[in-house]
């Protein structure tokens, strides 16, 4: 079956209101901070990368019915199984039934603040000059990707303008498929709302995405 992200929501016809929330309201159930911490701690082991995690989450069959931290939880369970760190039977049983995978890097309490402050930068040294220049018109890829991608559906096959060159970054599409980092030039590309949404859109409205070079082709 072909790859299907259920998370590509930009421009979908959803009429519901956006409900504001006070600043201090971080969690809405006691399990939510637990799901957050487990996800961050397991991410820090390096068993998978962030792009693999996003791919695992966005393809959950019931994605749209789940809350954010339920998506994280479902994604974590899936990653643990896919990477052989835990089996479905022990996740169901709630206890270890098989030996752990040895050699995993475990995030220790004393190392948390350092690990968070360091993060995981994705910028890499440039091996080639950028193909596109700031100000240049570009057309985004029209084809639907059969794998994890970060080109939103609403911005496929559209003409925009390169506004900023953001450097060379780990290519999410490759990194998510366990094909290595394959770093690519990254650009902020801006579109008029009319290009994206049609003639009825306000002329004073523009939208930009960050697009890796393989998403773009020159406009003749």
């Amino acid at each position, binding site marked *: 079956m072909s790859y299907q992200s259920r998370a590509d929501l930009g421009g979908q016809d959803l009429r519901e209101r956006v409900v504001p929330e006070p600043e201090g309201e*971080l969690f809405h159930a006691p399990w939510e*901070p637990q799901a957050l911490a*487990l996800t961050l701690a397991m991410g820090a082991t390096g068993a998978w990368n962030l792009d693999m995690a996003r791919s695992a989450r966005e393809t959950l069959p019931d994605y749209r019915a789940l809350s954010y931290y339920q998506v994280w939880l479902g994604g974590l369970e899936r990653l643990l199984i896919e990477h052989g760190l835990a089996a479905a039977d022990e996740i169901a049983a*709630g206890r270890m039934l098989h030996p752990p995978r040895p050699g995993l890097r475990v995030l220790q309490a004393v190392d*948390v603040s350092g690990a968070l402050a360091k993060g995981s930068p994705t910028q890499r040294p440039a091996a080639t000059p950028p193909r596109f220049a700031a100000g240049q018109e570009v057309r985004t890829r029209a084809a639907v990707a059969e794998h994890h991608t970060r080109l939103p559906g609403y911005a496929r096959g559209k003409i925009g303008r390169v506004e900023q060159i953001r450097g060379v970054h780990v290519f999410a599409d490759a990194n998510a498929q366990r094909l290595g980092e394959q770093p690519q030039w990254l650009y902020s590309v801006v579109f008029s709302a009319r290009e994206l949404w049609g003639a009825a859109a306000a002329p004073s409205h523009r939208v930009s995405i960050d697009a890796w070079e393989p998403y773009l082709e020159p406009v003749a």
Partner: protein
Amino acid sequence: MSHTHHPDEGGEPAETDLRVRALRTVLEQKGYVDPAALDVLIDTYETKIGPRNGARVVARAWVDAAFRKWLLEDATAAIASLGYSGRQGEHMVALENTESLHNLVVCTLCSCYPWPVLGLPPTWYKSAPYRARAVKDPRGVLADFGVTLADATEIRVWDSTAEVRYLVIPRRPARTAGMTEEQLAALVTRDSMIGTGLPRAPGGDR
């Protein structure tokens, strides 16, 4: 727990609670997680990393022209100079609102958000309606937050589709000339740094 209704919240809370406990037990028994590290992670995002960090960045930019210039040229370094860096803020870009331009940040593909300066994203930022509507109908979304902009104001929506993270620098409110940096920071709301809100007016009730 007092249950606030969120349109995006699904499933059975009690069932999910059991599932998370079960998973934590498995991971602890396997030795993959340090329970003390889990506590530190939660405490960090509950008490240390939140939108007050970003508010200090904005207030500094309002009072210090050299810092503002640095922030607009190299936000990652300028923000790190105040002690905020790392996870989900590795590559920062600051977006300055002006009289004629209003910036709004979204992540339509998941919920990318500048954690070191804003903390964990609010529920609405992760919700389907926000992600669907922000790119297509930003004025409608702003109306949900009680914000109306002049028709002539350009609205620029930034969809965070890669690892660049955006921080909106809202316009400094009027009648704040004599205020200290700390007093100014108190006017900077989280939503104003995403673009769904404006800073508070001085002497307001919050």
